[in-house]
Every structure is written in structure tokens, then in C-alpha cells.
């Protein structure tokens, strides 16, 4: 597009992937996000200093912060995303539910506003019926989201939910929602320009979640028939229109087993899982976002889009499946991405990258496309087996487990799938290699240093050191 991107970075990210791979980058502060990526005025002045015309917020940190967007708008820069007004309307989950309710979009039963006290929470929960969920009003992405099964555990969980909400979003307001059991999380990508054109880019099935965090997403959903798709996407476009939305956004729905759907929330930004939509539609969403922000019209009409094939995305996190999925930190000593037709990697690491404790542990996103779901699953499973990230622990084995599971393969799963099925991760059941090979590898791993390296010429060494000059 002829655009020169400028990135911002914190102390911990001086050497991070996003910093390295932009031609220009501006330092904005300390390693803690509160000292850098959440400093609104600093980011805006960095953009001005670099002579940037617009700010793309990505999908973390301030991307859904209406105050930040308003500051960008008032600074004379362009925000690549919705207006602060739309974000404010949809940003508070309680206000958004009210708006949707008025606009005829079905919502899940729950409280309309933030919970002020334990007593109030108990009363509301009794009205709605357990189990209930606490959700952060300013939140998203699973953070500040807690299940309560009965009144006994309510007080403790409310405290924890408020604490997480405060830490993650700077706002401890939480509300209550009825927990719909065995639901599917299905969302619709919408997009609109400044000229009043709206379109949807079909649904994404995001029911494979752990701790309310999506880990595998696919499009189209096996669960959605043509009629439901028509209703769902039309409700999504109505939702976007209700808040005068411009740019790319996502309407998240809970869908019950009878295909009734309920508005969950709107993500007023690009989603982590946008690649699956790009695969099946051929639309580059980020390119489209930039065009829209520049005042251009949507580059396509709704009726030009059709679902082409099937795509899956797996999120790769630095966490240890064998140890309660605790985050894993360290240096990536080897990063080898899978490659081939219909394979895409959106990576944030390279050989030598440091995975720090400061930010979200997502390392990379692997997505695959094929003409049908069966082909997509086979392709992404092989790609995961061939994806090497050594030096930190990752959730790749969990992802392989998901792709091998009969429930996933049949398409009959809901958001409790992993919680219900992934009781114990057993190594011996999960690899096709015979056990004795592992013993040999272990023995040779210790013996290996005695052997010649890659023939005569293959020795990898740090050539820079030979350049040393004193």
C-alpha cells in the first residue's frame, strides 16, 4: 500500500519481533504496560514525532479504549478503527446489552449495570439462577470473567473478578450474566465504511476455549445452517448499525443447542482470529481497515462475497500443558515454522527471541485453508507437528490433542469441550513414535556433543565472534 509503518516499543521490547521488523520505531517507556503500551499521551506524541498520519491499535492494550480513541481524534491523527462514540456505546457491556435489546437483537439474561456489593450480586444471582458469570464491563478476551456455581463461592469470586478487571482494564466494574450451559461461541465479522456501506464476512466458530480464552477458531461453523447464517449475520449487521459503527468489528454470540443465538458483546477492533475470515473470503481485513480510515469505500459489495473452502486457526501460547498451563518464559533457541500451500503463520517470535513475563503469552498464530473442513484439519495437524518452538514450553500438544479428538472432528462440541474432555494430558497416547525412540533420543541428546556436527562443513558457530577486533 506504500505505507511506512512506525512501531512503538517498551524497554522489554527493544529487541522484540515487532520492533525489529518495522523500519522505524519509537521508545515509549518501561517494560510494564502501564509504563508504555497503556500510556495514551506518550503513544500519540510518538506518532506525531515520527510524522505518522494514523494509528492502528492492533488487538490488545488500548485498541478498545474510547478515551484513547477520543484523544487520537482530537489530536488530528486518524484512528484506524471505529469512532470513540461507537466504542463508548459498545464498550460498556451493560450499555451495549441495553442498546441491543432496544434494537431487537436477542441478549442473554443478566444485570443491566455494574455490581456494587456482594449483597446486590447475591440478589441478582438468585433472580437469574445459578450458574452465573461475572464479567468485566470494560473487558474482553476471557480476562476478568469468572463462573459462580452457588452462593457460597460468590463473595470470593466477585473479589477476584474485580481485581483482575482492575489490573487488566483499569476499571473494576463487573456485571452478572446467566451462564448458558453447553453453548457455542460463534461470532460474525462485520465491516463498514464512512459512506454508510455495511457488510458481514460470515461467521467464525470459536467454541474451543480454555479458561474462556479461544485457542482454535474456524470458519465456516459446522453448526450453522444457511437459515441460521442468514439470521445471525443480519442480526450482526443490525448491531453494527445500532452504534453507527465504522471499520472492522465483531459481534460475538452465544448459540444454544437449538440454534437460538444471544448477543454476547461487540469487539470494536480487529480480532486475533481474523485470518480465518481472510482465508475464506480473500479479503485482507487490515488493508480494508486502512482504506476505510482513509475515507475510501469498501472494496467489495456484500453479494460479491461467498464462503470459499474452510479455514482453521490455532493460537500458540508459551505455557506448559504438563504444569497446569502456567506461562513459560525464556529465549526461543530454535523457531521453525511449517510451510506449504494453504498454510499461514502470523508470528511474533524468531530464533533468539526473548519471551518476557510482561505481556500476553501468545507467540504465534498458525492458520490453514483447504477446500473442505477435513482437509483443513489434516493440514493444520501436520503443520503443528512440524512446527518447532524450542526453549520455552508451548500449548502445541494441546492443540494437536484438540485436532485429534472425535468431538472436534465431528463438529459436535461446545465451549466446555476442553474443560470436559482434557482431563489428563498423557504423553504416551499422544505421539505416533514408539517409546524406545524416546529413550534413544534422550540418551543421544546427552551423548550428541561427541559427534561431528553436520559433516565437515556444517558447524554452526557465531561467526561474529571471529570478527572481534581489539
Amino acid at each position, binding site marked *: 500500500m506504500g505505507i511506512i509503518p512506525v512501531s512503538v516499543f517498551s524497554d522489554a521490547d527493544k529487541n522484540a519481533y515487532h520492533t525489529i521488523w518495522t523500519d522505524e520505531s519509537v521508545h515509549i517507556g518501561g517494560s510494564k504496560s502501564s509504563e508504555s503500551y497503556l500510556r495514551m499521551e506518550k503513544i500519540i506524541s510518538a506518532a506525531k514525532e515520527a510524522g505518522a498520519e494514523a494509528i492502528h491499535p492492533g488487538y490488545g492494550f488500548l485498541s478498545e479504549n474510547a478515551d484513547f480513541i477520543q484523544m487520537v481524534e482530537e489530536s488530528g491523527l486518524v484512528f484506524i478503527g471505529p469512532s470513540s462514540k461507537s466504542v463508548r456505546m459498545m464498550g460498556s457491556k451493560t450499555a451495549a446489552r441495553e442498546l441491543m435489546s432496544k434494537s431487537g437483537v436477542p441478549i442473554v439474561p443478566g444485570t443491566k449495570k455494574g455490581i456494587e456489593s456482594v449483597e446486590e450480586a447475591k440478589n441478582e444471582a438468585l433472580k437469574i439462577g445459578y450458574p452465573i458469570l461475572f464479567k468485566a464491563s470494560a473487558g474482553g478476551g476471557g480476562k476478568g470473567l469468572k463462573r459462580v456455581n452457588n452462593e457460597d463461592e460468590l463473595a470470593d469470586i466477585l473479589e477476584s473478578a474485580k481485581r483482575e478487571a482492575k489490573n487488566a482494564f483499569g476499571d473494576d466494574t463487573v456485571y452478572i450474566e446467566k451462564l448458558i450451559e453447553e453453548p457455542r461461541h460463534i461470532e460474525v465479522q462485520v465491516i463498514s465504511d464512512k459512506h454508510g456501506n455495511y457488510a458481514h464476512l460470515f461467521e467464525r466458530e470459536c467454541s474451543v476455549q480454555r479458561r474462556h480464552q479461544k485457542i482454535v477458531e474456524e470458519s465456516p461453523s459446522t453448526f450453522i445452517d444457511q437459515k441460521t447464517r442468514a439470521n445471525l449475520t443480519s442480526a450482526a449487521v443490525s448491531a453494527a448499525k445500532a452504534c453507527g459503527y465504522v471499520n472492522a468489528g465483531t459481534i460475538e454470540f452465544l448459540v444454544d443447542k437449538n440454534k437460538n443465538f444471544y448477543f454476547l458483546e461487540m469487539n470494536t477492533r480487529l480480532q486475533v482470529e481474523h485470518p480465518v475470515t481472510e482465508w475464506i473470503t480473500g479479503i485482507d481485513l487490515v488493508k480494508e481497515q486502512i482504506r476505510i480510515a482513509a475515507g475510501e469505500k469498501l472494496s467489495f459489495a456484500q453479494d460479491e462475497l461467498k464462503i470459499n473452502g474452510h479455514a482453521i486457526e490455532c493460537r500458540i501460547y508459551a505455557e506448559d500443558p504438563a504444569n497446569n498451563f502456567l506461562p*513459560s518464559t*525464556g529465549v526461543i533457541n530454535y523457531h521453525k515454522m511449517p510451510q506449504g500451500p494453504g498454510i499461514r503463520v502470523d508470528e511474533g517470535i524468531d530464533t533468539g527471541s526473548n519471551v518476557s513475563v510482561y505481556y500476553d503469552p501468545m507467540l504465534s498464530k498458525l492458520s490453514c485453508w483447504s477446500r473442505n473442513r477435513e482437509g483443513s484439519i489434516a493440514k493444520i495437524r501436520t503443520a503443528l507437528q*512440524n512446527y518447532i518452538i524450542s*526453549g520455552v514450553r508451548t500449548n*502445541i500438544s494441546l492443540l494437536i490433542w484438540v485436532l485429534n479428538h472425535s468431538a472436534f472432528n465431528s463438529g459436535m462440541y461446545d465451549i466446555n469441550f476442553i474443560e470436559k474432555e482434557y482431563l489428563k494430558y498423557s504423553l504416551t497416547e499422544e505421539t505416533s513414535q514408539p517409546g524406545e525412540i524416546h529413550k534413544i*533420543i534422550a540418551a543421544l541428546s546427552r551423548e550428541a556433543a561427541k559427534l561431528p556436527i553436520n559433516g565437515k562443513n556444517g558447524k554452526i558457530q557465531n561467526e561474529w565472534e571471529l570478527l572481534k577486533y581489539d
Partner: protein
Amino acid sequence: MTELIINDGKSEEIVLILSDDELLLGGQKLKYEIYQVNPYFKLLRIGSKNYRFALCDREEKSVGYLTEGHYFRYSVQTRLEKAIDEITSHQKESQKIFDVKSPMPGLVLKIKKRSGDIVQANESVLILEAMKMENDIKSPSSGIIKELLADEKQSVEKGTLLFRIEQLTN
């Protein structure tokens, strides 16, 4: 020739490395070839089968590696190392004490138990905040909390000893 005792946490097996291309496992002599592709990635060939593996991490007596997307950790010791280990750890063994260290740098948010409390295996002892998430640190075994070394609001480094569990003997 090197004799190595391989332990996967369940059982032990002996691998005899006879030479640079021959080894003995479970009474079976096997020809092998090994190639180092780059510093962290190797190819093992046995017969016509290829096995790719990457070195992931390494501790004093064990190696952790990655193959087919799966992580494995085995302890690898010579007979002598194992003998020394057994003697020095004999006393400890009979006590069965589990040291729980911080798996990453973070902030101790809340301590749920006290020293002397009886806990079940997998029961949460404290909450560690790291990578913007609250992480439950659980007891690896049922037993008594012998020491609780962390304080609430304390910042801890990776490897900091958080608490010790003494397994109850029946």
C-alpha cells in the same frame, strides 16, 4: 561405550551406546545415525526411519526435547551418578518432601493456606500474577505445608522457593 540409565518418571531402561553408530536397548542391538542440522535441531535415523528432535531445555541430570509437537523430559544418568544420587538423597526420600518453586517471575497476589495446613494433591496454595493472568500454584501432592516462604505482594523471580509440602505417610 557408555551405559546410560533413562528414566521417564515411570520406569527405567538402560541404553548402552556401543559406538558412534551402534547402541543396545532392551537386549536389541540397533544401528543408528545422527545428524546435527543446526545447534538446536537434530535428525536421528534408525534403519529407514527418521526422527526429528529439537533440544528444548536441560537440567543437571535430565534433558527435555521436542518431537512431533510434543515435549518429553527424561532423566539420563550413568550407573555411578545414580548410585551417588541414591545415597545422598536417601534421607530426603524417606521424608518425601516436595519443593514448589516459582515457574516464572511474578507477583504473589494471595496466599490461601498457612504453614501446617493439610492440603490435597492439586489444591491451590497461592495465586501468582504473571503475564496479566492470575495463576493458581497448586500442591504437587497431598500432605502438610511444611514451610511457606512467600508473602502476599512479594515479587518473586523464576525458581524462587514458594513452599514445601511434606507427604503424609499412612
